[in-house]
């Protein structure tokens, strides 16, 4: 069933909508949540919560990109469940991603209170300025949480090339945030 028909089911308040959503995107949502949480139970609960929140938000929302809409909810939910201390103890992939993201922050000596939503707006402006390939690689790493090896396979390039592209993009983000006055 295509996305439009599934969304129509939500609008009709037909519970078949959730079944069809799970059939179409369940495994991808689980994979996304599991990358963040590194726990089967937590990932499954995140996906269930995603279905519930989707049911509650459609209608009135009619998503343009249904999977992206679901994945965004799933990502929010998974981060809400994430126990950072335990993740650090397990040396989960998410900790490595966090460390890499810290390299994008202009000045770590000072705490800057910035609303996540405002930071998201800046990130969107930054992503718009990137070449498509670099943007895709950046999102695969820091949005989807893909490993370097997976990104290299997906884009048909070497792992060192992927690392170089990510390094340059992180530096570019750091410069971008500096220009936007994110230094203190």
């Amino acid at each position, binding site marked *: 069933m295509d996305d439009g028909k599934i969304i129509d089911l939500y609008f009709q308040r037909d519970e078949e909508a959730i079944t069809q959503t799970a059939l179409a995107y369940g495994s991808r949502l689980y994979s996304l949540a599991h990358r963040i949480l590194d726990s089967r139970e937590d990932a499954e609960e995140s996906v269930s919560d995603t279905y519930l929140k989707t049911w509650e938000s459609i209608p009135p929302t009619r998503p343009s990109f249904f999977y992206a809409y679901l994945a965004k909810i799933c990502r929010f939910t998974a981060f809400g469940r994430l126990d*950072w201390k335990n993740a650090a103890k397990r040396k989960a992939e*998410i900790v490595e991603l966090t460390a890499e*993201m810290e390299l994008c922050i202009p000045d770590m000596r000072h705490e800057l*209170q*910035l609303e*996540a939503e405002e930071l998201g707006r800046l990130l969107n402006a930054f992503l718009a300025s990137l070449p498509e390939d670099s943007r895709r690689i950046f999102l695969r790493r820091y949005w989807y949480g893909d490993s370097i090896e997976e990104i290299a396979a*997906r*884009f048909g390039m070497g792992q060192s090339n992927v690392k170089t592209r990510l390094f340059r993009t992180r530096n570019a983000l750091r410069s971008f945030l500096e220009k936007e006055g994110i230094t203190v």
Partner: protein
Amino acid sequence: MNGKEMLEAMSFVDEKYIMEAEQSVSRKFRWQPLAALAACAAIAILALRIYPGRQTMTAVSPAAMQEYAAEIRAEPADEDGGAGEPMAMMAMGFLQVTVRIDRYEDGDAVCIVTDPGSSSYAVGAEIRIPMPEPVSADTDGDNTAEAGEETAPEEENFILFVTGTDEDLRVIDIVPAEPEE
């Protein structure tokens, strides 16, 4: 702001970028592998032309060959006393092999390689050329021996110009070799 917040803020990224990253990769056209493949193919074809590697020849038009051989012999020798235009044929990229016609057998001239020239044939290798009527330098002045002659021809060397591949080797030209001093 710290790395956690940065990573969480990524959740606010526009859905169009999320979909863009999710979709399969549209690979840019890369001409380098195709160019390399074309170069390899060209080298392989050239190698097959230079080293045919077969000891038999086929696809000869006997009539045309005899006619051309007669024409060549009818032409006056060049300044060096050579026969016709072998250098021109070599320049066109054809392989040259000198043979002696050993016998006529089942409509073929069975030739023995006396000088491999630019080909990869070994001296003494046998080449069969379909040729119902023997080509031979004249004893009677008409440039050909009598039709149907089955006896061994006179000792005379011919230069064959050949091209093609193992499967499709062609005799392009045949001219009498210059007699040795």
